[in-house]
């Protein structure tokens, strides 16, 4: 099967949007994004990392907690609170890394739209303030650099 393209755009200074289509109805995609036993199988990041902790209390006001671990035993954790939950179309949650490398809390909005059995997932990452994003930049955080990556991408594919 051909892999769908991952699109990244920057609608504003504080936002980053990632869009990707999946070959499944959205109820199923929503499950894969929110059921711990499924999330643990794909949300792994760089090669060599596993996700030993994945707790999700899926309701408005509920918390979630993720911890990743690599082969050397190094750990990275993050978590947040669900602000909105409309199954199977919309999820809004805060996101904060333990070592604050994103320069504070970000707000992540996930929207799922289904067309003919396929689901387009769009993820919007919004930084708390311009300063938070700059702080993330100064730390050399991948997240903080995302917006710029997009622009560089445009350049390189122009």
């Amino acid at each position, binding site marked *: 099967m051909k892999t769908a393209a991952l699109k990244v755009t920057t609608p504003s200074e504080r936002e980053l949007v990632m869009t990707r289509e999946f070959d499944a109805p959205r109820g199923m995609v929503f499950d894969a994004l929110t059921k711990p036993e*499924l999330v643990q199988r794909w949300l792994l990041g760089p090669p060599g990392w596993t996700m030993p902790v994945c707790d999700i209390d899926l309701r408005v006001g509920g918390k979630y907690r993720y911890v990743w671990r690599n082969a050397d035993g190094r750990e990275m954790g993050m978590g947040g609170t669900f602000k909105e939950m409309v199954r199977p179309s919309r999820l809004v949650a805060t996101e904060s890394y333990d070592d604050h490398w994103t320069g504070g809390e970000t707000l992540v909005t996930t929207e799922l739209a289904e067309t003919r059995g396929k689901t387009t997932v769009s993820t919007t990452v919004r930084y708390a303030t311009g300063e938070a994003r700059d702080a993330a930049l100064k730390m050399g955080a991948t997240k903080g650099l995302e917006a710029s990556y997009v622009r*560089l991408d445009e350049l390189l594919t*122009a």
Partner: protein
Amino acid sequence: MAVDQLSNTFAALADPTRRAILARLATGEASVAELAEPFDMSQPAISKHLKVLERAGLISRGREAQRRPRRLEPRPLAEATDWIERYRKIWEANFKRLDAVLQELKHKQKKTIDALLDEAKPKPNKKRRTR
């Protein structure tokens, strides 16, 4: 690469004219006048953009006294590209795994539906009730 250097690189790239200038320089060095031509911009305006690119280390000046041709410095761009590639690769790998999880769920769902349909079918061995 130092983080400040990387930030400079990205800041310099956050402008369509500067990206177009880099794209032009990727095909070979050019003078300020030559660079100004396709953009319908004054030479001072172009010079401002060139200064930003120069500060970011993305371009340098040739020695030729009159033309001072600008040329692309590929290293910082390549290093910045490595960052993007790392980021994209991580998410592409995540989503590829998600594709596999979804295919499995679809397969399971189909099996469940098939089993239910099978159960609902009249069994040939049993006597069928007629209306």
